[in-house]
């Protein structure tokens, strides 16, 4: 899933400083699962904004709407019918959702309420971690199911570097060393001899280095 954080409240208040009426739009997908931009977070932020403005003695009208999926025009298009009177739309979706909303609500200010962080997994309740960078050329078959592109701070394909210590990355921020994990798995499966193979330089053109990416399935187009 895509994992996001809500932007700091003061930053959000700064963005809507000149607005008297805003539409707060949540998303029922990833950001609901990671508790950043679902219906619950939309309601919470709406209340915070109302309370803050009240304390400042300035009125504000905040309406709430949570869509099934903000990255899909099919679910976002109906928004176009309900924009009358709003000064801005504040989207609590990932960057993809914000951009679809911005396309739909042209002529209106569309503001991001979240910082989109990464593609990741739930490690434990309330903890999410990055696992994939969408490089477009998966190597997990060669790396025991652990992605060095994402999980090694230097994306080293022939690791570990000289900073690996006690299983931890040289960043020393609690991040496990991806190559320690890979070697542990190679050992567990009796395949440590595979470690001697030198991985060739990658072709990053399938990653975002090749420019903005797009996928088309001709057979699915209407």
């Amino acid at each position: 899933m895509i994992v996001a954080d809500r932007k700091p409240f003061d930053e959000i208040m700064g963005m809507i400083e000149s607005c008297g009426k805003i539409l707060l739009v949540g998303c029922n997908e990833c950001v609901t699962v990671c508790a950043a931009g679902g219906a619950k977070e939309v309601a919470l932020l709406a209340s915070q904004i109302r309370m803050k403005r009240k304390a400042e003695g300035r009125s504000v009208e905040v309406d709430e709407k949570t869509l099934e999926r903000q990255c899909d025009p099919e679910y976002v298009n109906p928004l176009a019918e309900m924009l009358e009177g709003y000064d801005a739309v504040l989207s609590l979706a990932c960057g993809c959702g914000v951009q679809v909303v911005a396309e739909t609500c042209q002529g209106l200010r569309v503001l991001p309420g979240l910082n989109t962080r990464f593609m990741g997994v739930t490690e434990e309740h309330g903890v999410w971690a990055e696992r994939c960078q969408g490089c477009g050329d998966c190597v997990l078959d060669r790396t025991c199911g652990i992605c060095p592109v994402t999980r090694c701070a230097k994306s080293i394909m022939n690791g570990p570097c000289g900073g690996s210590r006690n299983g931890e990355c040289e960043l020393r921020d609690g991040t496990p060393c991806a190559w320690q994990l890979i070697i542990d798995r190679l050992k567990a499966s009796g395949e440590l001899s595979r470690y001697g193979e030198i991985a060739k330089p990658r072709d990053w053109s399938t990653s975002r280095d090749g420019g903005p990416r797009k996928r088309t399935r001709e057979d699915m187009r209407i």
Partner: protein
Amino acid sequence: MTAPGNLERVLTSGGFAVTAECGPPRGADPEAIRKKGGYLKGFVDAVNVTDNQTAVVRMSSMAACLILKEMGFDPVLQMTVRDRNRIALQSDILGAAALGIRNILCLSGDHQSFGDHPGAKNVYDIDSIQFVDMARAMRDEGRLSSGAEITVKPDIFIGCVENPFADPFEIRALRLAKKIAAGARFIQTQCVFNVEKFARWMEMVRDLGLHEKASILAGITPMKSPGMARYMKNSVPGMDVPDDLVERMASVPKERHREEGVAICLETIERVRAIEGVAGIHIMAIEWEEIVPDIVKGAGLHPRP
């Protein structure tokens, strides 16, 4: 092919090599390099110039190497894959070779979060082993990473680093084997403070016969103070400074700290020289290059061949 550079000459003749590190200044002053070079003249076989070490911006390694070359040194151009992609790395190898800089040391580089520009974007297009292989193919096969032919091949001597003290320990010699298979012919190790561990690593290196395929130079760093010992132990990635050395540095009065640091350094050199397969030492006297002559003389390694 032209005649080998001084470092290659000393190593292939079987001599015990001495190299030293020269950290370039945070400024555009060529005199800062010449001053450091002045301390090292006659005491080393080659001088490494670090490449924005610990991700802190310094004068470029290439420029400082050229200044040292003009002083008569055989410079070692350190190149990290942190700041340059394969296009820039290959271009710099061609440029270095054109300037007569023969020794290239291929490294990953410390992550930029340790340096003075933690908000910088890193590159890591290729890793250090892929870099060694790319440099070797440029020299031996006369082709770029893309396969395109090079008009004049770079005549270079390729080295890499290895950290015997990083984890997992058991693969540290195997990883060196990959670097040597890729084309590295001289190896400069991380600073050796934990000699017992270094000796165990060398045993694994010898078991793989790696000491016969490449020249291994043990990294040597004199400590200036107990504070420096603690800092290296706790804050520098990949360092292994045993507690007893930190305590030993702290046990002498302040005015004798440097003397004790040099004493530890000379004992370390004596111990690593006794280890089979060690072909030389690489002295990294961080912002203390002027001590190198005392170390080289104290270790009985002066004059140089």
